[in-house]
């Protein structure tokens, strides 16, 4: 099976936040939580770049390594998912995640953490595919329907790519060759220990 990944071509991102909005809408993500966000580096300065970032579905995921209740699992496609039934909202995955992906609804009297929520690569959770229970906890399971994540599908400049890691890396490499520049495959080194050009 293919190892799926995300790749944001920052030289194409126009910071329209369509990926952010599409994600929130598709999964009815709760108020205050963004599974994806667009971060602008060197904002207002020459050479600024915007990067759309969510969970990178790391190889040897740090969140899974530190979770005290072991609620994470990796699918055959390389998607890192978690069980909200097991999650106790301790915050460890947030400390360990290099990309700030795990987020928590504020619950309880102190506004302490609820059960963690993060990007599922539009692949739902441990419940039966496209069941109401799965939708309520994790949102749509587009992968089970044979579709790619909505954020990448919606991207108007085809900056955000989702799919087989080898293929999207190839597409990006071709682009860089043709353009003659590229600001890098943001997060890949950290998430997959791949070199930005490889």
């Amino acid at each position, binding site marked *: 099976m293919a190892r799926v990944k995300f790749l944001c071509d920052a030289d194409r991102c126009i910071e329209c936040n369509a990926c952010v909005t599409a994600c929130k809408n598709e999964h009815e993500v709760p108020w205050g939580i963004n599974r994806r966000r667009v*971060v*602008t580096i*060197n904002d207002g300065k020459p050479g600024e770049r915007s990067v759309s970032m969510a969970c990178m579905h790391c190889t040897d995921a740090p969140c899974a390594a530190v979770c005290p209740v072991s609620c994470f699992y990796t699918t055959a496609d390389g998607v890192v998912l978690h069980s909200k039934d097991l999650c*106790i909202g301790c*915050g460890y995955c947030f400390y360990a995640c290099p*990309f*700030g992906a795990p987020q928590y609804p504020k619950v309880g009297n*102190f506004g302490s953490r609820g059960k963690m929520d993060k990007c599922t690569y539009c692949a739902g959770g441990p419940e039966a595919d496209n069941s109401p229970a799965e939708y309520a906890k994790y949102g749509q399971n587009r992968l089970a329907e044979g579709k790619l994540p909505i954020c990448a599908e919606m991207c108007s400049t085809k900056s955000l790519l989702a799919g087989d890691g080898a293929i999207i890396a190839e597409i990006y490499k071709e682009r860089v060759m043709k353009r*003659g520049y590229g600001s890098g495959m943001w997060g890949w080194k*950290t998430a997959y220990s791949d070199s930005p050009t490889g």
Partner: protein
Amino acid sequence: MPGSLSTLKVLCAALALLFVVAQPAAAQLSFKPTAEAVQEDKLLNALKEGDKISGRVSIPDAMSASLIQPAGRDWRDFHRSKLPIIGGIAIVGMFAALLIFLMVRGKIRIHRGFAGTTILRFASFERFTHWLTASCFIILALSGLNISFGRSLILPLFGAEGFATMSGYAKWAHNYLAFPFMLGLVIMFLIWIKDNIPGKVDLEWFKQGGGVLFKGKHPPARRFNAGQKGIFWIVIIGGALMSVSGWFLLFPYLPANVTTLQFWTVIHAVIAMLFIAAMMAHIYIGSIGMEGAFDAMGTGEVDLNWAKEHHSLWVEEEQAKGQAPSGTTPRAMPAE
């Protein structure tokens, strides 16, 4: 309308002028907006330890402005590799040390036997404060250890579902019992600080091995001997560190900064391991380690001979105040 036409003319002229003025400036700009963009590689290489690549986001969540924080891997390494070593050495090491101590030194008996008469050592409010803090501490310690090591030690026994449910309740207990624990710390500090100021008599206590290392030797001590003063300050300073670090973890949206939170979790975990080890020694000497010691926090009344052996100066002070049985009380004679 001639008026508006002339306005238009002036506007056009102004625009043209702007163009002429702006053009040389544009020509001077040798910057290529595409090829000279920020490079992830360069940013990653320029990062200092514990630093992160961050920018600006248009959503209200300020924490999401952090794009990549490689320090997360250091935190993972701390949690998975370093903490089990620190905790293992501190807790298993202390357990082994106490076991060896018990085997070598044995239970510390009252040298002259029980006197039969007692003296009030801790009033009910003091005992209440002690047990409030102590019972919270035990649950906080166990639930904390569960978060740190339960996955490898307990999860295989319970199964994923049962362990997650138990850990969920443990987390709630940890969050809520933090408050009575902190209250207990404050009261203990206020009621016992006056008896815990280090003094000259403490040096002598250390020189004589605390009356614990060598049989039959009992250095003089006031209400608290140097060892107990040590425990007091470990509890106060350790407890304060646990409270401050724990406060940030209780209210994670307060610092709203992952680096700060990582720092406080490390402090919280390391101090906790040392704190637990120190308290194991305290529990040992207050229960099975020493004859007559538990009564101090049990009934509050300790045997007079126990008090004379371990807190001779304190007994004299109490007797002077008339709040203790006098030293002339007939005591059990050795059957020789």
